[in-house]
């Protein structure tokens, strides 16, 4: 017994020493961002948090400030289409953060909103402006969208982050917090050694990629996307992919209702919401069996909340030039600049007002003429 207890103490002490050592090293390599941290969550790769879901989950406390905040939400087309560094200079009244997440559906967007709000103290809720970029691909049930073999069916990327470090526990009704939101930064501090080791592993993998393929990752660069075109076979495959990702019954009613209730709840608590209909290339829009149901839902939501002074919706459906997209969904950089400019213009007249006055629906942005020229 004596030997077992001694060895337990030795192992525990050695582990604690090593853990603290790596923890200290993490502060040297990645100083604590505190409240002055990077606001653009799309540059997560440069931080200790590595990925957008991890950054959103672990680094969201940078949004707990009394400043006006514009928080961009959506899937990967919001991530690449609304460029934070393009929007921020045009919006002096608010700090812009892009929390959009690749593959997100409406449920995951709602999760992000909940996570942001639970970290903020109540007075810091009011200056929030949530920009929710939507398209039909986001209206897929979680069980269909999140069904890869390496995850529990229905777990979103955010759910995975919740469970990963033991901050939440799994229950039949979904994740339940173990660590109260107010202790988030303490929890993040405690897992810094793990984050650093994980970061090192990812950097090593990037190094191997670079060595073997001459590229950091399989993702295309902005320059490659700019010249990309889709063949007819690519288009067919893309349509098949989205049919597999959406299910057979059109856009999900559950997701539609969730978007509606999420917007209603934000508006009721005095926060502002911008709902953006994100365009897709014309060939995709015309061929997809889901587009009509989605367009109808968007119009319905715009009408329902149109009378609320803290709501505005924007459609950019005129920006549907096939050659302006690198694939079936994602805007090329030149088009992303237009998207960003349109959003910035709308936000400067909506988010920067002290009190929103009249409700409105904007179907065309102020740069309509410029945008139209991209429609080849």
């Amino acid at each position, binding site marked *: 017994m004596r030997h077992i207890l001694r060895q337990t103490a030795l192992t525990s002490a050695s*582990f604690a020493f090593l853990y603290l050592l790596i923890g200290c090293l993490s502060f040297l390599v990645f100083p604590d961002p505190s409240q002055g941290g990077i606001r653009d969550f799309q540059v997560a790769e440069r931080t200790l948090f590595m990925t957008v879901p991890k950054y959103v989950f672990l680094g969201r406390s940078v949004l707990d400030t009394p400043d006006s905040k514009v928080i961009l939400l959506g899937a990967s087309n919001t991530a690449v289409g609304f460029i934070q560094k393009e929007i921020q200079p045009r919006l002096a009244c608010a700090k812009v953060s892009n929390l959009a997440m690749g593959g997100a559906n409406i449920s995951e967007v709602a999760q992000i909103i909940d996570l942001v709000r639970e970290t903020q103290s109540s007075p810091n809720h009011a200056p929030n402006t949530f920009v929710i970029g939507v398209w039909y691909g986001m209206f897929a049930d979680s069980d269909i969208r999140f069904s890869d073999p390496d995850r529990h069916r229905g777990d979103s990327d955010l759910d995975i982050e919740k469970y990963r470090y033991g901050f939440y526990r799994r229950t039949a009704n979904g994740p339940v917090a173990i660590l109260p939101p107010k202790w988030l930064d303490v929890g993040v501090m405690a897992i810094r050694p793990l984050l650093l*080791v994980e970061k090192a592993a990812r950097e090593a993998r990037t190094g191997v990629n670079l060595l073997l393929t001459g590229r950091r990752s399989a993702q295309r660069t902005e320059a490659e996307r700019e010249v990309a075109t889709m063949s007819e076979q690519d288009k067919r495959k893309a349509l098949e992919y989205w049919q597999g990702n959406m299910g057979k019954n059109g856009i999900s009613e559950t997701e539609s209702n969730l978007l509606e209730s999420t917007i209603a709840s934000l508006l009721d608590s005095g926060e502002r919401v911008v709902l953006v209909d994100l365009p897709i290339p014309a060939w995709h829009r015309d061929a997809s069996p889901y587009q009509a149901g989605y367009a109808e839902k968007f119009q319905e939501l715009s009408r329902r909340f149109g009378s609320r002074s803290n709501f505005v919706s924007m459609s950019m459906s005129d920006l549907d030039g096939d050659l302006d997209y690198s694939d079936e969904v994602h805007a090329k950089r030149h088009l992303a600049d237009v998207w960003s400019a349109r959003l910035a213009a709308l936000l400067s007249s909506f988010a920067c007002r002290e009190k929103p006055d009249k409700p409105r629906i904007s179907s065309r942005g102020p740069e309509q003429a410029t945008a139209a020229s991209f429609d080849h």
Partner: protein
Amino acid sequence: MSLTSPLFFAFLAGVVLAYHLNASVSYRRAVLGLGNAIFIGSYLTDYTQVLPLIAFLLLGYGCVSVLSVWKSSVGLGLGILGVLAYYVFLKRFSFFDDFGHLPFPYLTIGLSYILFRVLHVMVDVHSGDLDERIDPLGFFRYTCNFLCFVSGPIQRYQDFRTADGTAVVELDADKVFQAFARVVAGYAKFVMIAAVAEYAFSFLKPQLFQAGDPSFAKLCILYAVAASLYTVYLYYNFSGYMDIVIGSGTLLGQTLPENFDNPFSASSFLEFWQRWHMTLSQWFKFYLFNPLVMLLMSCFPAPALTAYLGVFAFFVTFLVMGVWHGTTAVFVVYGLLMGAGASINKLWQVACTERLGKKRYKTMSETSGYIYFARGVTIGYFVLALTCLWTPELLDFARLIGRLGPAGVLAAFVGIALAFGSFWWLVDRVAPRLTAPAIFATARDSLVGRNLTLASQIMAIVAVTTLLHKSPDFVYKAF
């Protein structure tokens, strides 16, 4: 209770502490018995789920008790038949669906290994190798030892008895460290190597079944890589589990038998099975192969036939061992492949010995070229045969093999054999040159050095566990 859950650590720590609180044999037996009951209980959500297992144990104990007073071959035959029939019924083999099944969910984990232990005790009691009377609680502690409950190792009762409540391993600082190191190494295999291999495998497997028309080369490479990854996953998952179990056993004063001995260094299929899942192979050798050979030799006593009777006995033994792995038809294919592998290997040995003579065959089989070739062929065959384990439905298996065709299977086999053979050739040349300088070795082996090494392994395990985020399960639990 999953081996990777914090609950298991708490449970194990509790049992180890309680065990060492008092050196009284009856106290320690009570702790182990209670530990077994709690471990089994952790799998239950309702008491009814354990009733079939209790009935199985009672049936086994009843047979053992009868055989200890009535050492009749008829009695042994009837007992084995009864126990096997009840086991097959409980395991719900798909071939016996017509016999019906119990109308409620129940525990089947560990059933196969309990069967092996019960049959071993019955045979040994009948033969007189085991002449002491086993009390019911001792029988429970043996058949349901929580360390070996899920998937072995299959310990002989005679070995278990010497450590039942009596510490056969005298613990000192070094032995305890070695036990800790073994457990940590087991977790490293389990949650790092096996989990990463499974992660990669789970991404490749669906591509083999996806619609589309991939090129022949791509399909073969995909299949060879997926099948190899599954083998890596299976080995590290199972041998990691064994390290955890054997290391924990040391802390409870037990010496559990080893189950693996560098199987991938085997240069024949039969040698492979002397190194892989060793306690299972030995069990089949003692209780199926040996009696079968004896029976065949008594029926066909001609000396010229002896070697060929061995070939047949190998086929039957490995066929049964393969079929044991699962309850669907594809496991019969697996059994046939195992049987074919073993009997072809034996035939090769017989033919080479007859043609070359014992001495020349031995000389040939010791040349390095032959060894690497044989290693490659052995592993290549085993890797491909394991396909049955990851396509448990016969239809999927047939679809995959049909898609590859004979040429595809052969190409994959050659590719894997070449890769493994070359790998071993490289390892044997590079490994001897990789010795740490004396100063590092001294630092590593010091008290601080070895504990920091252990701590860094634990750190790596925690990091990989969080990175992969989905706890791996123990694969052999399903067999």
